[in-house]
């Protein structure tokens, strides 16, 4: 479903990705872990080309995103993204946040879009907040709306960029629960996270990154219980 081939990315002098190869199968949930500055968020952002790669290719469903002739907007419609800082549209209500892209991009009728949005809000447990502005929501509620907004485009893949890192501890659970349900429904997901419990429980595969490369990957059991690489061992001993 997703193929990342030999991707390099630098910000000025700083080389962030140094030849990353990475695949995600349909319905797979991949959790990317690693210390800050390891390049995991950058990798995620390269998958939908929010960051342009310096070299290497990214494919989604066989289409090469890194090809200059590819209509990137078309592909992004099938790749949902959830950000650490939610990035809800503050000038729109919760419902409008969710319906904006389907209406403006796909041309779906407002009544239909509203119906889809209400179903999604039910899914994330926020039907009562439909007509509220994001400024009135808690962090956990904001992130659940952000998930619903991404789902409204009916993506094939969902990318999560540290979705719980900006939340108060008591709100992490509600967001992870929504993500877990999504995984159970068979959504293909790539999750950059510091929630090791989630990675172990929900992830099909765990990828450990450090200093711009994938150091080790495998099943959650392999990575958490029997890490092979000393860098993985050192990282896990600090966070577990």
């Amino acid at each position, binding site marked *: 479903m997703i193929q990342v081939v030999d991707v390099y990315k630098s910000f000025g002098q700083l080389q962030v990705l140094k030849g990353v190869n990475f695949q995600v199968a349909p319905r797979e949930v991949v959790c990317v872990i690693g210390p800050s500055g390891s390049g995991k968020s950058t990798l995620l952002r390269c998958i*939908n080309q*929010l960051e342009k790669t310096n070299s290497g290719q990214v494919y989604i469903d066989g289409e090469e995103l890194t090809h200059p002739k590819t209509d990137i*907007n*078309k*592909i*992004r*419609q*099938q*790749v*949902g*993204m959830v*950000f650490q*800082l939610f*990035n*809800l*549209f*503050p*000038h729109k209500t919760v419902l409008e946040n969710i319906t*904006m*892209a389907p209406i*403006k*991009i796909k041309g779906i009728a407002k009544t239909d879009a509203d119906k889809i949005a209400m179903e999604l809000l039910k899914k994330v447990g926020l039907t009562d907040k439909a007509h509220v*502005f*994001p*400024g*009135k929501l808690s962090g956990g509620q904001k992130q659940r709306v*952000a998930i619903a*907004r*991404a789902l409204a*485009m009916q993506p094939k893949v969902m990318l999560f960029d540290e979705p719980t890192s900006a939340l108060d501890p008591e709100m992490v659970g509600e967001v992870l629960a929504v993500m877990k349900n999504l995984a159970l429904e068979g959504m293909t997901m790539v999750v950059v996270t510091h929630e090791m419990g989630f990675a172990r429980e929900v992830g099909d595969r765990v990828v450990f990154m450090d200093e711009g490369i994938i150091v080790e990957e495998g099943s959650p059991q392999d990575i958490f219980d029997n890490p092979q690489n000393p860098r993985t061992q050192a990282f896990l001993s600090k966070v577990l």
Partner: protein
Amino acid sequence: MPWVEVFGMGILDNIISQNGYQVVLRNLGYFLGGAGYTIFITALSLAIGMVLGLFAGLGKLSANKIIYMLSTAYIDFFRGTPLFVQIFLLYFGILPVLYDNDPVSSAIIVLGLNSGAYIGEIVRAGIQAVDNGQMEAARSLGMNQRQAMTYVILPQAFKIVIPPMINEFIALLKDSSLVSAITVPELMHRGDLVFANTYEATWVFGAIAVIYFVITKTISVIGDNVERRLATD
């Protein structure tokens, strides 16, 4: 001149009077007609300025070097030279080459060009004040650059720019008094004429100042209301 038909109400009462307030009272209709011109000219210049300013502001953020340079040159010139000079340059110099120009239309063009430069900077600052994550979120949903600007960035920038925009409205309205120098029959010009006939400087210009103030205060009250209505949190 067709404009006179629109705001021609009141005629100059040029009897020299002993009482300043009587001069003001007798010429009040004449002044208010001038205020009509002032508002009319300001409103049209503002409309022109907002269109120019939107393009100039977006142009200053453009990755296209030519568009960037054109926008920068436009803003630099109209912001970097005195409005009074621009009025004379265009009214006597450039516009007569282009068409058979009259004072009122010339005034609207110059004021529009001038305010467009300031509004351009306001627009640029407003767009840059919107968090970068907003653009990313819009693009990640599949919107192209233009859709993201139209539906996500500009509506938020609009809210941010209301206070500086109200400032600009008020400044423009007051600056429009400068076009009295090219005989536009607006408020200041009419005050000048009445003063020249009566020498009641304090009463006449005091009254003119009060009329300007009432208009600018009205604009700022309207602006406060718009701001309050658009507040979402």
